[in-house]
């Protein structure tokens, strides 16, 4: 039985190995967006009135907004009326049930992706080694718009941890959802966040009670399957005072000639002394080498260190998507709270990425660390965009930013856009940046020792990313390395 890792995604194959299409009957809305569509989505999910209203309010705000034009990205205008805003596999129309009832076709899809859905099997020891940390990962899976299954539910429940589809949390824990939904990323935060708020389909909900250390890694896999559908998942993680959780997100999509939109919102709330570690391995379909197809990834991720000494850490390995627009951020409101951002963004062929972070210091003695590694190959273009803002209240705030670019070949681009807004003169802000190139001499030196260029490039790139990979949960660090290797195939020679 495969582990819940990106193993199979990165099986040493030349093509995007997650690019298969699953043949299941789907229940898909025709393209188009209006208030009726939103009411349909909400009704489909049997949502309470307050949520329907919340969606409609977001929709009305979205209509007033326009797409951001400041990113260093070039793509044709997206026609939002040509997208379908809801798709669910038909057999799941009544919402997720027990695993035994899940469409076997879907189960096979996830098996191909290396995600062990079969809780039974996993618990019965088909994942044999209990020492293996990876057998200790709870997985939620979101297929197109619907959450299919959440494993290890019982074990988590025993610890008091809530880990379920957000659509379920709306019913089972409405007070939590109502309190925190939109509390970190308000509906009108930006164009894509507003759109997500209006049409979000599903996603994961996590609540870790006071003082609890979550007994296992939590993980969600997102997959877009249907043609012309957007995926708008919404994730909400709340770590109550003194609790701790590590969460990993993975994603794939089939190879399709047309572009598909993904506009997610992730909100994290860490109360006093709580810690959230959020890791992403983003492997959406990047398009082919000529830039045909691929996912448009417009994502808003933000964490709030609401209490003193809270800590939020984002680690991301971004290798997929045709377009990436993403700035996982931390609002450091609690005194002595800590924000971290560790990022590897790799672009190859015609991919474009404009990614970075925002660290908003509000509390005293707040600290943030940013380590961003950009790798550009082929004709791709990669930008780092980072904001460090220190408010007048944030006495003795500290930030350290390190931003490194590695270029492979002569046709790619790398850009850095650091913004610093410091309103407190006791703050210390440090910024280091470097740009290097994988040189022909380095490649030849490797080759002369018997190492072929592909292996050499991946070794050099892995070395470049070491500081970030160190931050990933163990079992995913290795996979991230392999993922880079696959993504870089054909980058040289």
């Amino acid at each position, binding site marked *: 039985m495969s582990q819940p890792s990106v193993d199979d995604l990165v099986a040493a194959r030349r093509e995007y190995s997650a690019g298969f299409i699953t043949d299941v009957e789907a229940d898909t809305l025709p393209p188009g967006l209006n208030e009726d569509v939103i009411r349909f989505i909400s009704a489909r999910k049997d949502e309470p009135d307050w949520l329907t209203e919340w969606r409609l309010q977001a929709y009305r705000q979205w209509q007033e907004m326009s797409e951001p034009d400041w990113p260093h990205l070039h793509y044709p205008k997206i026609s939002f009326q040509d997208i379908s805003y809801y798709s669910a596999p038909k057999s799941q129309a009544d919402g997720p049930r027990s695993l035994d009832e899940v469409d076997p076709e879907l189960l096979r899809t996830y098996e191909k992706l290396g995600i062990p859905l079969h809780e039974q099997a996993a618990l019965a020891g088909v994942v044999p080694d209990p020492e293996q940390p990876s057998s200790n990962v709870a997985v939620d899976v979101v297929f197109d718009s619907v959450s299919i299954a959440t494993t290890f539910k019982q074990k988590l429940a025993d610890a008091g941890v809530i880990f379920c589809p957000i659509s379920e949390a709306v019913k089972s824990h409405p007070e939590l959802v109502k309190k925190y939904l939109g509390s970190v990323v308000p509906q009108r935060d930006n164009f894509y966040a507003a759109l997500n708020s209006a049409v979000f389909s599903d996603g994961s909900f996590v609540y870790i009670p006071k003082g609890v250390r979550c007994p296992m890694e939590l993980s969600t896999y997102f997959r877009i399957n249907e043609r012309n559908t957007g995926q708008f998942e919404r994730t909400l993680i709340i770590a109550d005072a003194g609790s701790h959780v590590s969460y990993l997100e993975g994603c794939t999509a089939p190879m399709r000639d047309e572009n598909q939109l993904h506009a997610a919102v992730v909100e994290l709330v860490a109360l006093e002394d709580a810690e959230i570690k959020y890791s992403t391995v983003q492997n959406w379909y990047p398009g082919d080498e000529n830039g045909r197809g691929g996912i448009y990834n417009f994502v808003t991720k933000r964490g709030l260190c609401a209490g003193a000494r809270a800590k939020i850490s984002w680690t991301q390995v971004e290798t997929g998507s045709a377009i990436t627009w993403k700035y996982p951020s931390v609002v450091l409101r609690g005194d002595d709270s800590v924000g971290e951002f560790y990022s590897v963004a790799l672009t190859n062929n015609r991919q474009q990425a404009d990614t970075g972070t925002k660290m908003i210091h509000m509390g005293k003695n707040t600290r943030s660390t940013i380590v961003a590694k950009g790798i550009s190959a082929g004709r791709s273009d990669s930008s780092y965009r980072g904001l460090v803002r220190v408010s007048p209240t944030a006495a003795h705030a500290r930030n350290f930013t390190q931003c490194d670019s590695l270029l492979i070949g002569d046709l790619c681009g790398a850009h850095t856009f650091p913004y610093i807004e410091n309103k407190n003169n006791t703050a210390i802000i440090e910024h280091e940046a470097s740009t290097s190139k994988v040189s022909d001499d*380095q490649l030849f030196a490797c080759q*002369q020792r018997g*190492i072929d260029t592909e292996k050499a490039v991946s070794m050099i790139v892995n*070395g470049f990313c070491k500081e970030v990979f160190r931050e990933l949960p163990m079992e995913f660090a290795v996979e991230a390395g392999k993922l880079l290797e696959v993504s870089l195939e054909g980058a040289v020679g």
Partner: protein
Amino acid sequence: MSLLEVKDLHANVGEEDGQEILKGLNLQIQAGEVHAIMGPNGSGKSTLANVLSGRPGYTVTRGSLSLESEDLSHLEPHERAQAGLFLAFQYPVEIPGVSNMEFLKASTDSLAKAHNAEQPDAASFIRQVRTLAETLDLDPQFLKRGVNEGFSGGEKKRNEILQLLLLDPKMAILDETDSGLDIDALKVVAEGVNRYRSANNGVLLITHYQRLLDYIVPDVVHVLADGQIIQSGDKNLALELEAKGYTWLT
């Protein structure tokens, strides 16, 4: 069968129409032999080493090169390395972020894979490398640093010899491994090369100075000038060159 055989080798820098650097070079090295190539700066010594190892940026326009009768000219650089050709660089390059140990393991594994041999397990491999490092007076700490990153000139050269001893190739080309070394470091390097020497392999020592040949005694000495070998002899030729300079030959 010669170990290394170079026949009438003509090579340009760059493409077909580039400047010709090697102008009909002939060389035969038998297993068990050490050959030295001496010559003034710019005579084409490094070019020869580069062309033999397949470095991009050169074009062979005529002649042949083979290792144990296998034609090298159509092989990629890593395939030539896998065939047993080793080049100790005149200017070893830095590879930041890739630790020396990691690099050595990747190299050993690649060569093992090419020969369908088993890859050594990590623990015994690390022990082997540490022991080698000690014999070359290299601090074991340096194995954790990036390849040649922040190494002194002498450390870089000793690192090349460490690779030579670890990988144990059939044919070793050493491009001015002696230059820039003080006498103690020179002795360590020479000792390493002498340890490598065996009846089954060959060495091509490229050097500018006779001094190295006091410690690594060659079987044959060649003089390279303007892209051709203009004279060959025994080790005494090197002494003569030292005394008289190159001009008396050209």
